[in-house]
């Protein structure tokens, strides 16, 4: 008798507590009230850049609305990686950045951080080294982040653990910037966004002049009539995975007027195993190989000698005429950010030595 009564009590308690957990999750989903009003105001004006902002910022609006960023007196409004309109207050005091590539851009925009993730050996942002380490890019520690009492956290949208943290950060009234940083356009947009938030228009001007203009110059100078074909590969021991035009390096060579032989295929993603037969038939003019290795010279030598030893690879024009290039990881695997001009210039030198000089 006693056991069955006890059981009934336990079941009743469980059932009641389940009702309360339901209430809890509902509250989580609502953003703090402060986020919403600016969005409603600016949405209608986004389409008409010329009629915007009576404070004499018309020119700036035209430039920035190209990236969908609107700079107001107190805050900046933009569209984040999820397509949401987000408003961020200018001049945040305590910033945590969870991705080293974005940290580099934030630093270049004149931003300070109180928290960062573990640095990777190739990308050290000097000014940020004194900040607290809150974990790794793959596993940032929420408790540590919260303990720093940040007012802004910048995350990378391609990183799932970071994305999953967003509701918890928002719940704690912390502003979150969720960004993609995969292509050149993303970099331009990010530097515009960050300099707007830090209020450093001077640094933005620097960036436009030193970086964006330089890249445009290189692209403009690249001959458009040579009709070159290339393949971009990732070097592993076992398989040929290729990069099409929807990847960072793929976009770079496309900008330089080189066709990518792996573009003819429908499927997306940048780790697709590709047939060597197809490469042999297409006989691309250039072969670019990305590598994770640190000693570029040693790897290049080894890859080239492997290519020469293998009769199938050795029959390719690109291998025979020494147009087989190994791309260093700091410029072509990691995001080059402010070194985009260098990245483009190197490729241009490889592809059009007659115009840009040899590599």
């Amino acid at each position, binding site marked *: 008798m006693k056991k069955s009564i006890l059981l009934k009590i336990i079941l009743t308690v469980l059932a009641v507590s389940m009702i309360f957990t339901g209430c809890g999750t509902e509250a989580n989903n609502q953003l703090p009230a402060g986020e919403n009003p600016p969005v409603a105001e600016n949405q209608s004006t986004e389409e008409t850049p010329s009629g915007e902002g009576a404070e004499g910022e018309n020119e700036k609006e035209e430039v920035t609305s190209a990236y969908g960023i609107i700079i107001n007196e107190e805050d900046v409004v933009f569209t984040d990686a999820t397509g949401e309109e987000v408003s961020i207050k200018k001049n945040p005091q305590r910033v945590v950045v969870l991705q080293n590539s974005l940290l580099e851009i934030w630093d270049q925009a004149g931003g300070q951080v109180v928290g960062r993730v573990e640095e*990777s050996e190739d990308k050290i942002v000097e000014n940020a080294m004194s900040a607290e380490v809150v974990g790794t890019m793959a596993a940032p520690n929420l408790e540590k982040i919260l303990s720093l009492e940040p007012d802004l956290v910048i995350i990378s949208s391609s990183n799932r653990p970071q994305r999953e943290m967003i509701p918890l950060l928002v719940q704690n009234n912390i502003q979150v910037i969720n960004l993609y940083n995969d292509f050149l356009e993303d970099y331009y947009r990010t530097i515009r966004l960050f300099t707007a938030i830090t209020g450093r228009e001077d640094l933005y001007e620097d960036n436009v002049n030193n970086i964006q203009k330089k890249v445009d110059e290189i692209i403009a100078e690249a001959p458009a009539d040579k009709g070159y074909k290339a393949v971009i590969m990732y070097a592993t021991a*076992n*398989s040929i995975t290729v990069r099409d035009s929807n990847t960072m390096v793929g976009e770079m060579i496309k900008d330089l007027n080189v066709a990518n032989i792996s573009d003819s295929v429908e499927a997306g993603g940048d780790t697709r195993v*590709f047939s060597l*037969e197809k490469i042999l038939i297409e006989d691309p003019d250039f072969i670019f190989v990305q590598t994770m*290795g640190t000693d570029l010279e040693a790897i290049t030598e*080894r890859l080239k000698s492997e290519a020469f030893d293998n009769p199938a690879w050795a029959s390719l024009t690109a291998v025979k005429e020494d147009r087989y290039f190994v791309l260093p990881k700091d410029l072509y695997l990691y995001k080059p950010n402010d070194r985009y001009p260098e990245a483009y210039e190197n490729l241009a030198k490889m592809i059009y030595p007659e115009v840009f000089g040899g590599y």
Partner: protein
Amino acid sequence: MADNMEKKGKIQKSVILTIFICLSVAGFFISIGNGAVKISPREIIDAIVLQEETVNYQIIWNVRLPRTITASLVGTCLALSGCILQGVMRNPLASPNIIGVSSGAGLMTLIVLIVFPDYYYLAPIGAFVGAITATLFIYFLAWREGVATTRLILAGVAISSLLGAGNNAIITFYPDKVSGVIGFMVGGLSSISWKHVDMILPYAIAGMILILLVSDKLNILMLGDEVATGLGLNVEGTRFLFIIISSMLAGAAVSVVGLLGFVGLIVPHITRLFIGSDYRYLLPATIFTGSAVVVFCDTLARVMFAPLEIPVGIIMSALGAPFFLYLLRRKKEY
């Protein structure tokens, strides 16, 4: 009467073996004839006979031929390895994974490719060494005045678990470098060249010869430890020999194509369902069924979504598993 039945059994098995050999040879030619680029049979013959430096010649001689040979040898090695282990362990679920081949090879390859990416060319050697080392480790862990098969299997499971955790640890600490090793973890034949044939051929041939010489010992071992000892067999020594041969065969295969599953476990069973459990027929038959399965599936993997290639492991599981289930339902042995 009994004599006649035995003769009939032998003839039947020989016929089945011949059919397997024909399938294997057919697979060989189909594989050479098909790929991402359409080459007609006439052009194939031209390429082989004339041996001129045309693209077709390159594709046939230096891409398809080494790939087909390697696929064939890999299939043979893995299937033989699984077949031997199933006999030695007297367990139908035995496969090269149980003796730590996959986990040992996988961990060593991950270490080389991720922690020391400059030495990526050492990955195949690392895989082979990792496989054999894991097997020896498991064997000695399970040793207690001899190795009981249950202890061996349990030690294998524990070590595989440990090495698997090592794999996951590396993936956790180097997440941005992982995409480069996915190809190995899934297993595939996509950049096979004559160099790989050189790597696997000696082990495959040595393994095949050894196994065919001692296949009758495996029959005796199947009768149980006591009976086998009573019949004069050195049980521990024989078991150790078979396990090492099995590890060597599987290690060679894994080092060349990565962690290819399915073949080691299921192909011996498919063969057994057709030809029975007499190892004097089963082992030779497995050589050809293993080869046929991998060669056919690799051809499909190359051709289905050309010029993209699907990992051959996916094709094998997708086609092989239903086929095996069908056989399981039809035949009465299990």
